[in-house]
């Protein structure tokens, strides 16, 4: 009999990757210039985690997906207008910073507290998902700390595939060095998975799913708890854009044969 999983996905928002970003100094630490004006998207790897969660829930009747998200309430609302049309979930919103400069330990504490607050949480059926790294802080540290706070010692990072075995065990593929995957089986829940890309394409928008989700999204945003991140004990001595611009030599009107010879010679140089 399939397990009815409780799948909690942690995922925040990040500036649209096509935006030009510029750091600025503020009294509370570094931030992005015009941060609140930048269009935002769901963090890409967290998005993959959400789509994998929805797929797993669909295959296992009775399962449910929550999305726990820390971000400025207004920005969360904007992003949810799109994300909520993709797959069914219940949003748990935390009104706090989505900045890459926010301390991951403090974000993890808020996420873990929100997860523990889910009514009827059953750790024997619990899977905590998230992206293995964010596209903002990009440290790959938050999910492990969430897991520790929840007492989860079966953790996996860089996950590209999860399959449920006939005996209920999980078979998990994690990215390791050199384009390879480590294969593990996990005999029992709870477990935490930090997803890489996975194997699923982004689901198309489904207005019906959107309408169902929005019934819970708006109330969740209204009751979002405020989170203030203190960044205690962290000092940013500098934050800067890479200044290096190369003087590109443009080679035009050269035959493919000549270009090839030059490239082969360049490759061979130590």
């Amino acid at each position, binding site marked *: 009999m399939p397990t009815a999983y409780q799948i909690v996905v942690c995922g925040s928002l*990040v500036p649209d*990757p*096509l935006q*030009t*970003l510029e750091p600025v100094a503020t009294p509370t630490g*570094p931030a992005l210039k015009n941060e609140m004006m930048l269009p935002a998207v769901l963090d890409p790897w967290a998005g993959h985690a959400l789509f994998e969660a929805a797929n797993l829930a669909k295959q296992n009747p009775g399962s449910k997906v929550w999305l726990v998200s820390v971000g400025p309430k207004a920005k969360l609302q904007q992003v949810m207008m799109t994300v909520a049309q993709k797959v069914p979930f219940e949003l748990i919103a935390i009104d706090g910073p989505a900045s890459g*400069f926010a301390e991951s330990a403090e974000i993890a504490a808020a996420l873990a507290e929100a997860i523990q607050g889910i009514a009827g949480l059953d750790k024997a059926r619990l899977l905590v998902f998230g992206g293995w*790294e964010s*596209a*903002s802080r*990009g*440290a*790959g*540290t*938050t999910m*492990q*700390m969430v897991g*520790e*706070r929840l007492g989860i*010692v*079966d*953790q996996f990072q*860089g996950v*590209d595939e999860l399959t449920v075995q006939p005996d209920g065990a999980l078979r998990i*593929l*994690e990215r*390791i*060095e*050199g*384009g*390879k995957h*480590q*294969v*593990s089986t*996990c*005999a*029992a829940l709870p477990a935490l998975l930090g997803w890489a*890309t996975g*194997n699923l*394409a982004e689901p198309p928008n489904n207005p019906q799913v959107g309408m169902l989700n929005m019934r819970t999204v708006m109330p969740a945003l209204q009751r979002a708890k405020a989170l203030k991140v203190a960044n*205690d*004990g*962290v000092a940013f*001595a*500098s*934050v800067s*854009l890479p200044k290096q611009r*190369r*003087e*590109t030599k*443009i*080679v*035009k009107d*050269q035959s*493919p044969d000549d270009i*090839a010879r030059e*490239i*082969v010679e*360049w*490759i061979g140089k130590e």
Partner: protein
Amino acid sequence: METILFLAHTEADGSLGKAALETLTAAQALATGLGAPLLAGLIGGNVQPAANQIASCGAQRFLGVAGAEFAPSRYSTDSAAAEALAKAAAATIVIAPATSRCNRVLAGVAQRLGGRIDGHVTGATTADGKPGLTRWYYRQRMEAVVQRTRRPWFILLDPGCSPAWSGAAGTASVEAVAVALTAAHQRTVVTGVQAPASDAQTIRPDAKLLFVAGAGWTKTQPDGKTHPEEAEQLILGFLGKAKASLGSTKSLVDLSGEGQAVLKFMTHLNQVGQTGSTPRHPKGLATCCHGEEPHTVGWRFINERRAINLNANCSWAQGKADVLYVADSFAVMRKVNELLAAK
């Protein structure tokens, strides 16, 4: 007074890998800069060969957690081992290589010990007697220098950021640190590694050259047709002859994921850039790549860069490559492969 713990896991043969040796160099520099003692903490099935390998590194103590249970790369046992080593060393700064194994586990250990962690660190330095580090934010788009007062401070140093330590081997006396395991620590079983066949392996972290293929390889060519089969042959042929590693733009791997008849060997593991990897190689050759600045972070850490593109104004290359050849990649790579084959 700081105490620096160099923390690493052994490879399958009991030795330390390149990333670990690079981190050891950084740990030594940090200890020297701070006037702090350096200790080594090792995890693995058998840590004595690794300890002997770095016997002359100047570590005051060699601590080890060893045994069959600690051979596999697994969160539950690795976290217990790392926690025990950090405690036994009374470390204030723990510096470890950002391998998949350490990346999986050390943030959890920092949480257990009430510490803080920074991942994907590119440099650890000292200034005015204080430790600091550099790391990138927003997917390699801005660089920060970070200092912390909270201890223990865990630092995961990215591979390729320091020269590998290369001192004399010797005989080190390893202090065994005991870790009590329960059945709960072994609910996860590592069953193996899944790798492409050796002739299909396109990701080679130690390669001297990164070859980046863009979506242009799948576009209509001057004869009005697409030539994905020839593109595959040219790219794989080049990778095989030049022993290069393959990177790809997001648009190209997305096409592959959508089941289009494109480059069958291309997966998301090859993806470089905003939502992919930013590998480190001495040289990079980008072909048929298009896109704006945010996409080009995939070769942020490539030293010498050249590009082949039909558009002289392409943002992939202008201001980012050393040389841009305005030419047809099919024609150039055909000839490159001929020349390499004749060598």
